[in-house]
């Protein structure tokens, strides 16, 4: 059980690190948000799963089970909340006419796109 917790936490740290590097290195706001949202959500989920496995190493006892259920509730809430916050922020950026980055500097679509009125 402790081995599983260690593996989960190291995987979570790996995803956090890749998300941070992508957040620094990508050229555009939209691509940066893509890197951040995915790595963030998966890293949080893996870390919380590892901690819930670690709380069960005291033995099958009501303390460890209750703390595990609370940790899983944090994971479920964050798994619902983080994509919602990302989507709202992306919509806000789209509404305020932020032009996406392309390699040769030309816009692919007609920008801003026509919004449904």
């Amino acid at each position, binding site marked *: 059980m*402790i081995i599983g917790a*260690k593996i989960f*936490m*190291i995987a*979570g*740290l790996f995803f*956090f*690190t890749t*998300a*941070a*590097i992508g*957040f*620094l290195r990508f050229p555009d*706001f939209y691509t*940066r*948000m893509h890197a*951040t949202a995915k790595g*963030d959500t998966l*890293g*949080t989920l893996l*870390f*919380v799963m590892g*901690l819930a496995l*670690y*709380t069960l190493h005291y033995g099958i006892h009501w*303390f460890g089970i*209750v*703390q595990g259920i*609370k*940790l899983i*509730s*944090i994971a479920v*809430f*964050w798994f619902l*909340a*983080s994509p*919602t*916050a*990302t989507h*709202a*922020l992306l*919509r*806000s*950026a789209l*509404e*305020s*006419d*932020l032009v996406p980055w392309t390699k040769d500097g030309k816009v692919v679509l007609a920008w801003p796109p026509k919004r449904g009125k």
Partner: protein
Amino acid sequence: MEGFFIVITLGLCATILLPLYRGVFGPTVFDRVIGAGFIGTKTIILILLIGVIYGRIDMFIDLALAYSILNFIGTLIVSKYFIRKGAR
């Protein structure tokens, strides 16, 4: 196991320092907002790890849950406020 948790916590602190650059020098407002949200997410995990190190995880889980709700609501409100005002 204590040493493992301390090493993981220090690695997480080093990972917090990376998006701080984007949060301070970000080109647009939205970069700063998402940098703040990213640091907030790592703060949740940091609170949980500190709870495990102190041996009081039953108290720190509630703090982490409250902090995650605060982070979510903050990002939503900021993204509502900056519609048609950001990108400059």
